[in-house]
């Protein structure tokens, strides 16, 4: 069924049917006989046989996680990534602190400083993933398209407090410079079909 058909289907006319449910036994003897009947019917072996049959047919649908992973949708909101500017590779984050302010679970901490070249530099930036609810607000508010959500959804940890650091989220410099950094198409991203110009910093 296509999405269109799926949305327009008329559930009153489709092939739904009611399952027959027997009357529940009321007398004690009837209840007793039902238990005995069910116990010796061997339904469990029916189920086991199905599994065994499928095993021999090598027709397995189970995903071999973690060897196999499902592709996730582009707008899925997993662990954040920090983007760089094209060409120059300079960090996009300007340290405005809006993400820290908007974060609904108060899990972003950012410290900035006046650096040697008189610019504002992010000196420390952490997100406590144990608290993050992956709402995407930070990505939406970021005026620089610096913080975005990536596809890394595996964040098991031995403790509740599980931090990710700025350096770990930052795009590797070479992939920014050779143009393999991907723009995030999800929440808070640039409007589709709008061209992203190369940064004027690389004149």
């Amino acid at each position, binding site marked *: 069924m296509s999405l269109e058909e799926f949305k327009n289907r008329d559930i009153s006319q489709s092939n739904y049917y009611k399952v027959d449910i027997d009357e529940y036994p009321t007398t004690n003897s009837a209840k007793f006989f039902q238990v005995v009947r069910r116990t010796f019917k061997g339904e469990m072996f029916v189920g086991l046989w199905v599994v065994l049959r499928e095993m021999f047919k090598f027709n397995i649908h189970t995903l071999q996680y973690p060897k196999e992973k499902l592709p996730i949708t582009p707008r899925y909101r997993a662990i954040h990534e920090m983007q760089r500017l094209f060409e120059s590779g300079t960090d996009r984050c*300007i*340290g405005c*602190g809006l993400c*820290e*302010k908007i974060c609904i679970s108060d899990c972003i901490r*950012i410290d*900035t*400083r*006046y650096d040697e070249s008189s610019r504002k530099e992010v000196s420390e930036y952490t997100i406590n993933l144990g608290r993050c609810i992956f709402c995407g607000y930070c990505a939406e508010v970021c005026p620089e398209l610096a913080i975005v959500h990536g596809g890394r959804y595996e964040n098991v940890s031995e403790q509740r407090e599980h931090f990710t650091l700025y350096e770990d989220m930052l795009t590797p410099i070479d992939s920014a410079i050779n143009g393999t950094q991907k723009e995030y198409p999800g929440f808070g991203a640039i409007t589709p079909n709008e061209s992203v110009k190369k940064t004027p910093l690389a004149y």
Partner: protein
Amino acid sequence: MNKINFKLDGIDVEASSDETILSVARRVGLYIPTMCYLKKTTPSASCRLCVVEVEGVDGMILSCQAKPTQDISVTTNSEALIKERTNIMKLYSVNHPLECGVCDKSGECDLQNKTAEFGIDQQSFSAKDQYREVKEWGLLGYNPSLCIMCEKCTHVCNEIIGDDAIEIEYGGYSSTITPKGSDTLDCTFCGECIAVCPVGALTSSDFHYRANSWELTKVPSTCPHCSAGCALEYEVKNSHGGEKIYRVVNDYEHTTLCGAGRFGFDYIADGSKDEMKLQSAVDAIKGAKAIRFSSQISNEEALMLQKIKEQQGLKLFNEDARVYSKFTTPFSSLATREDVKSSDAILILGSRISSDNPAIRYAITEASRHRGASVVNLHPIEDALMQNVITQFVKYEAGSEEGVMALLVQRLVCDVDDATKRYLDSLDDGYLSAESNFGEDELDEIAAMLSRKESRVIILGADLLSHPRAENIAVLASLLQRYAGFKVLVVASQINTVGVSLICDLDLDDKSIDGTVGYGMPAEFTISYDDSADLQVAPLSQQEGTVVTLDHQLLPLNVAVEFNGYVLNDIANILGIGKRDTVDFTSELPQSAGFKSTAFDLLENFYQHDGLDTRGYFIDQTESGANSTLEDIEDLAEFNGTVIYRCDEVLQFNALTAKCAALGADSALVGSAQFAVAARVSDGDLITITSAGTDRVREFKLDNTLKGTIALEPMVDREPLSLLGRYRYEKVTITKGSCDE
């Protein structure tokens, strides 16, 4: 005063003769946008945003400086006005850097707000941009590209602070702000220009790019450094380094801070709890004969100490508050800084006010600039910082304050009672004048000046309080209050000197006594905010409580950053006289001393939009019935040889300010060229200063702005006990080198 009636947007309004159209409009709640207006200074009239139209008058007039005349009709909003204002806003935005994202001012920037308010989304003007160099001036940074030339900074520096350290370098589109007459800024670094700057042009170097306004939480409190207790707000943020104060700001329309309040906050302690230490403190108090404490404590702590005294039967020592209390007894009531601001004649006696109490200095500057007040400074050492406002400087000999006061009283009082008259007639003014070096001509000049003045204030400084003849000086000064129409302001030395003097029943400090516990003061067992103390407790900025300023105003303190150790209340609780929280004592402060029964949580701490001060409450000054008798003037002490004056640098007040990195405390002895010759030392020499049995090694620094033969020695780093009860001037011997091994 006659009232002026006129129409504002069709409404009938009434104005007093000193009000401008803008202030009337603000009073009645009509909005006129402004960019350069600052209530506490004269209008700089540079932004032209406040334009209004007056019926029958061609063109637009500036409402911030124009006063209304009878029956005019003023329009504050019309199409033409909106167009004019919108164009001004567009002009401001020509070449203005698009850096709100990183700018320190973003979120509280007038330009940002007004650009949004006027909906400036396109630009119809342009100009060739030019290179503008970013400047770093010590604690301040200046970015001329962001500057909108509103001139607020130069106005506060000149009219409120009195440093007059920055000026406008006119050059049309390339105008900038520059330090006056020098390449770098050499001022007292109050940082008030940073506060008033409506954009991010003037910034605090320490705070620059460290946080944004929306990340910071404001904690309104009171500055704990000097007796003025200025209103301030700590801006704190909890980040990677734990909770920290990022900067201090003030409600600059109504208050002013000095640099100690603004930049002196990095002494914050974490504290820790150790039951053993607490118990040993309790044991020490139980076994003590006396508690010696400082005035850097809250009223609640003072009350607890008083209760401990009553319970344990020990003595309470606080020389600072005891001396203040004795000194102020003869006066019927004491003046406030507001009285200074609204006076037209000010005498300053016995204080280097620019470093002793910057807030009083600012009040004097305001009186001088806005009311044309005459200011006479009587002191042995001339103060270059005050030269912009001083109209007469009288130099007397160190030690002769009693004589100077007697001469002033003799000349200035009239209609005195018989006994006083006989006393004054019997004074040997020839001797006093000769010994104090306070001449007839100078007295004449003061008297002539005062004859034209109505509201007079005399400011009595710490030199007098520490003088061996302090009490008689005070009695003499009270005659000026009674018979010469002077209001008297006594410069209390520390934040809560006044509060302690009202709450505690103090004993004369017997330094030789054994078994002392110190609270903020050194003793055998020391409890203080210093981490090297036997028990560390929270400093004032990390406690809730109240203090009483020299204006006799009770003000609340709030916790800037949490302290995890003990407070005095924990000790009091073990002794059985504590309460759940320290501030539960606030409503129990003695009403007999003028306190009210208001609970801490009901105390406000802000200024209303119209400038009304709602902070805390004013203490009722109880009229003291003490019948003080005049004593004969003692022979005036002579200070010959090498003399030093205990005086901290501007912005240094105590051990806490000395810890603050931004304030950069310097331990050098500072003297004039004349002093250097007399003491045979030269700039940069390492010297040993010896007085009354104590030695200290310091560097000598030559200061060419100083005059005379008295050098200035810092006190923040001196052992407090060695200074107890000592006059501020000292005869010392100076030897080169540190030969005291």
